[in-house]
């Protein structure tokens, strides 16, 4: 298979290839965080008063909160929130306001993200609608017209605020309240842009929708906000990707994703997270402190699939509130940490409705000096008769200087429910390696192969292009981990 050869070849040669910086004229707000900055961001985006009030209220809450310290993240530095630029945007060309800056076009071309429809229509890439976010603004959203014929709204968050304020107002912060946690409160105060998506009743979205987040400017943080609403009986497959330049400094990424899955709707949310993980000595890299949560009404289904290879620190728990009767949710995750990366990630499944079901499959891989923790909560409330959960968390250790941890919490208060959890920790066995070596695979290739096999259960759930990318990423990021 030429494709697998390709993967192996790139695995042995590549470094973080998305680590370049785009030279582009950008505008910034002054460094620091206070009410004036928030007013300034809000004014720049010409936001209505209610949204500014929402931001200020969140800011007031945030000032009283302290950063959570329960994560197993010893390398999470103390963040100086006054030393961050909260808004950075490529300057618009006044003469050609409709067109995309060629430098941006080039950036996304280089990243392989189709932000022009031409390429896709010519059949070069498969059909995916993309919302591309560059630092603090969305620069392009494709296939909007075609989607709007079906009543689907897919645009940047700022546009949604302008054009569909009633929807934004109705759903914003209903799943992740402004004061939910320290980073969610920060995001609610300063969020810049993100994607907004609304699928009307009974509509099956004809193509995958995706958001692509790119951090470019130095000294900034990215605070995007994504709001996805799947109305009754609709279905959607959504993908999210992200990259950032290589820098010696840590950059903060504190996003909030909210998903509302109405009655009988079905949402698949896939993430391939490829933030800059820092160099081999653990310098630099993105601090990824993200709140993602969805709510399922009666009979709804939400599936999270994530592959994480990037960011120096990951603190992320995509969660589902199974509020409606007979709703269901899945969480499939592969988290790979190498060098000095640290990840504390997992999920929460809150069973409220009757007959709710959830399934968690988490595969952690730690190599080098990294730490990889699964942290999860499965809670069954007294009213959730017939609720069912199954969790499986496997950890794979590569090398003896890394750590793999599992911290699940199960709270069950319903005698008619069943919750199961199992976890294992192991390493790649000598026998497996020997078998591959014997057949002519170098140790690194063999590890790549074994890891891909180990993660297959999750990778196979990703949409096609994502699956290929994720496989490559897993191999690349393991490079040099065998010693």
């Amino acid at each position, binding site marked *: 298979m030429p494709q697998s050869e390709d993967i192996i070849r790139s695995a042995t040669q590549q470094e973080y290839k998305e680590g370049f910086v785009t030279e582009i004229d950008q505008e910034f707000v002054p460094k620091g965080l206070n009410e004036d900055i928030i007013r300034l961001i809000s004014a720049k985006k010409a936001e209505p008063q209610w949204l500014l009030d929402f931001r200020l209220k969140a800011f007031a809450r945030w000032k009283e909160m302290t950063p959570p310290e329960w994560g197993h993240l010893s390398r999470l530095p103390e963040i100086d929130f006054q030393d961050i630029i909260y808004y950075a945007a490529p300057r618009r060309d006044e003469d050609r306001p409709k067109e995309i800056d060629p430098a941006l076009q080039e950036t996304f071309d280089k990243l392989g993200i189709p932000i022009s429809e031409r390429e896709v229509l010519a059949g070069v890439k498969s059909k995916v609608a993309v919302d591309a976010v560059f630092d603090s603004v969305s620069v392009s959203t494709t296939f909007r017209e075609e989607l709007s014929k079906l009543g689907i709204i897919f645009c940047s968050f700022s546009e949604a605020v302008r054009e569909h304020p009633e929807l934004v107002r109705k759903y914003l912060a209903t799943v992740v309240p402004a004061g939910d946690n320290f980073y969610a409160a920060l995001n609610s105060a300063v969020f810049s842009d993100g994607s907004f998506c609304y699928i009307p009743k009974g509509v099956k979205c004809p193509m995958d929708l995706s958001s692509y987040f790119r951090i470019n400017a130095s000294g900034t943080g990215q605070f995007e906000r994504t709001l996805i609403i799947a109305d009754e009986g609709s279905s959607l497959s959504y993908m999210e990707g992200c990259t950032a330049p290589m820098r010696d400094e840590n950059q903060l990424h504190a996003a909030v994703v909210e998903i509302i899955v109405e009655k009988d709707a079905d949402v698949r949310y896939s993430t391939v997270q490829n933030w800059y993980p820092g160099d081999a000595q653990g310098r630099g890299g993105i601090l990824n402190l993200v709140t993602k949560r969805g709510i399922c009404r009666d009979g709804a289904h939400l599936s999270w699939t994530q592959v994480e290879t990037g960011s120096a620190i990951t603190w992320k728990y995509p969660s589902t509130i199974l509020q409606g009767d007979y709703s269901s949710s899945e969480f499939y995750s592969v988290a790979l940490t190498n060098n000095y990366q640290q990840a504390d990630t997992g999920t929460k499944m809150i069973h409220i409705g009757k007959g709710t079901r959830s399934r968690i499959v988490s595969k952690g891989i730690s190599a080098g000096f990294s730490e990889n923790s699964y942290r999860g909560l499965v809670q069954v409330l007294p009213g959730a008769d017939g609720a069912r959960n199954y969790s499986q968390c496997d950890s794979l*250790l590569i090398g*003896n200087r890394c750590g793999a941890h599992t911290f699940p*919490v199960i709270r069950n208060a319903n005698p008619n429910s069943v919750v199961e959890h199992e976890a294992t*920790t192991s390493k790649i066995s000598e026998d497996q390696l020997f078998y591959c070596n014997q057949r002519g695979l170098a140790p690194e290739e063999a590890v790549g192969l074994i890891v891909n096999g180990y993660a297959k259960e999750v990778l196979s759930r990703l949409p096609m292009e994502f699956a290929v990318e994720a496989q490559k990423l897993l191999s690349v990021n393991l490079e040099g981990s065998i010693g």
Partner: protein
Amino acid sequence: MLGRDEVPRRLTLRENDDLHIVFVARPGYSGNVDFEIDIVRPGANLEIAGLYLSNNGDKVNFNVCVRHLVGGSHSRQIFKGIVGDRAAVSFDGLIYVAQDAEKTEAYQENHSILLSDGKVDTRPQLEIYADDVKCSHGATVGSLDEDALFYMRSRGIPFEEARKMQMISFVSDILDRLPESYRNDVISRI
């Protein structure tokens, strides 16, 4: 060691020590049960078993921490119980494997059956810093099996007895570790 004896809370296991503990929380028992065990020499073997039969507002908290500070040792924790009638049981168990504690084998299990308005919180945790290890944990919280009850009742076993039989069989692997006289005493309380 029997459950009636005073249990030392903090223990250290050395070379080829072999320790088996069975702790039984009978109905009416409320309290915290803490075990903190360090394994500091290779070749040690540890087995901790716990049984809880909690009802009538009992509150039992298990807090178990097993640290493998050197390699080549084994530990196994198994906690099982039946929780009903406003009782609340929590299990907080940690297996810690230090760096370079290779060839460690550590297992942890916690299974509960929940009857009417009982509550179970379980937190089985693994914290592992060595790679050549075999560690796993498992936890389940469930209810009595309706099908099994139906099977027994259709063969003439009264409902209450069928329930009781299922509960006894659920915890039988812990009961087997108890001396016979004590075992019968525990069974009579199910």
